[in-house]
């Protein structure tokens, strides 16, 4: 039964991926914009009478780029985005994966899945704007889906109660299908849609 559930969740996630085919590129928060960071830096200190040491300490490029990278990186883990990107079932898998990664011994599969989901957004934050959209979309999706399926698989193997499995999966898949059919018009918040 577990395999069937995993395949069903994968199918749902493929369906959700197809929604992003109408997009042209990811929106700005997903990657660092050198020009914006520089403008922000200049804007903050322009016309201000701050002491020089303050400017050097708090308005330098290292700080500005570190923050820009952090913000872009974690934007990939913004739950409302992941609901559109992976589906509610996929997000549940991702959360379950995070829980098991922290609380259980890590196998090779765990390390593989974890590495993918940790590194992909980092690459995305740095170079997403420079890569062809469909390649970056698929690479991102794959890395998240691998971890999400790992999480769901681990949940299924650790959960002894069949009732909980059936209820959880039923609700997650039901919510995903309902989302796909009736509540799928907010994708424009995350990518530029081609009209």
């Amino acid at each position, binding site marked *: 039964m577990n395999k069937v559930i995993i395949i069903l969740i994968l199918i749902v996630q493929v369906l959700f991926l197809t929604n992003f085919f109408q997009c042209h590129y990811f929106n700005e*928060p997903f990657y660092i914009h050198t020009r914006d960071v520089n403008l922000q830096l200049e804007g903050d200190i322009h016309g201000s009478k701050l002491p020089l040491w303050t400017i050097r300490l*708090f308005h330098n490029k290292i700080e500005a780029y570190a923050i820009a990278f952090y913000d872009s990186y*974690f934007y990939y883990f913004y*739950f409302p985005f992941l609901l559109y990107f992976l589906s509610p079932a996929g997000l549940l898998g991702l959360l379950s994966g995070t829980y098991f990664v922290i609380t259980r011994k890590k196998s090779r599969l765990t390390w593989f899945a974890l590495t993918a989901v940790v590194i992909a957004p980092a690459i995305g934050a740095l170079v997403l704007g420079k890569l062809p959209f469909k390649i970056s979309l698929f690479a991102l999706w794959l890395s998240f889906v691998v971890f999400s399926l790992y999480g769901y698989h681990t949940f299924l193997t650790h959960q002894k109660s069949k009732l909980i499995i059936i209820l959880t999966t039923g609700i997650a898949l039901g919510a995903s299908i309902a989302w796909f059919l*009736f*509540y799928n018009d907010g994708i424009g918040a995350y990518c530029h849609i081609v009209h």
Partner: protein
Amino acid sequence: MKLYTAALIAIFVLAFIIRFIGLTQVPPGLYIDEVSIGYNAYKILTTGKDEYGAPMPMVFKAFGEYKMPVYIYLTVAAMAILGKTEFAVRLPGAATGMATVVIFYFLLREVTTFDKTFVEKKREHAYLLFATLLFTLSPWHVMFSRTGFEATAGLFFYILSLYLFVRFLRIKNPVLLTGSLLSLATTVYSYNSYKAAAPVTFLFFLYLLLKNKMVTKKIWGRFIITALIMAPMLLFTLTASGSTRFAQTSAFVGYESKPLQVKLLTYPLIYLQNYSSYLSTTYLFSWGDGWDRQHVPGFGNQPRWQLLFFLYVFVLAILYRKRFGFAFLLFLVFVSPLAGGLTRPSPHAVRSLPLIIPFIAFVAYGCTQLLFTEKRYLKIAGIFLLSIALYETGLFYHYYFNLYPHETIISWGGGYKDTVQALTAYQTQNKYAVIVSQIVGNDYAFFKYYNDKLQYTEIAPTGPWQRPNKTLTPKLLYVTANAKDPRLTILPHKLLKEIYSPGTTDVFVRIYEI
């Protein structure tokens, strides 16, 4: 022990300084809700009635909504002592914010005493100091404590209720339970979000007492009385007037006309999306909710360095959810965004303010674990994180006190005070009639607060010009925020004064004689 007490007192002093220093300068001016609160408090103090003439109301009618009474009555008390000043409007926020820090310490101390498995005895002092310090410095809490937000007073009564309840569990003195339930009931009269959080917390308390076999007839009586106290406000919310605010901010706007089956399917999904946004890293650590009155632009609700600690301890809490301490904090995590999920925009920092309690309790737990670790690489990581934490704290307070006031002056009603003062002077000296082309919207709240005797007529910012009938005097003052106001092309005019947004070279409004 002496060192511990000294450190604790030092933290409380720091909390006081951060919440009170330059209270009227940062944020730079009263914003619209604050002037509305201030004006109603002033009217209650001087006439015993609100701005609409209602005597000592339970809810205050404001522009397009109804305000909860607790903060306004606290402001009445502040104004009775300090007069009608900006400081008096913000004092209840700062004072309840300061008290919240103290109660937060006592709450966690009570939790650690009640649940010995939550934090090891030898780590308890370090944990409590970390937690109190992080709460003291929390950008989220500091921002709200320094403003006349009703939510800050609500948080105080909520945390007081939690503290008294946990203490009751341990000491079993019924007076504590009475205090706890009364505080909980007060939250419902403090801020709208608690209309969802308080009833759920009420049931949670009841569940804990039933589980611990502590429910007697007298305790049932206390719960029933509390329910009766909360009922009027909860019932008011169900009326057309009471639900005005919800109608304006409902997350389900746009879906009302859909078929019932689509509503049944989509409403839970909208709620899921909104609810999940409150627990997202982007909201908590990166960009906040995007409203510059509720976070410093470029900063999240909490410092970025806290993310890993929060995530790690959150997972630990789920793993050890059977321990009282973790279960209690997890409950607070899940209950805090309950109301916010129903509204838009989501996430919203005011509506999820109670989230700060479990959040900081978790981060402090992680910090304590790291402090006592014996693993060398974790010690090095700890030193690295401490450096980042210190830097980020400095960065936030540098932005908050030095740059934020200038960058957000318009959001804080910058310019209204000077405008009203200038108009008052003109009207007194020359008997002008004043016509104000709508500046931002709901301008009247500012005009009333700064001078409710000022005679003026407000007109739409666009549309044909018509001399208002009421203004019989030949001398007219025309106030506009639009530098290229089309009316000025057809009206002969003379520029009398430009009012600047305080501390900037940006013109807020221009006053013309026409």
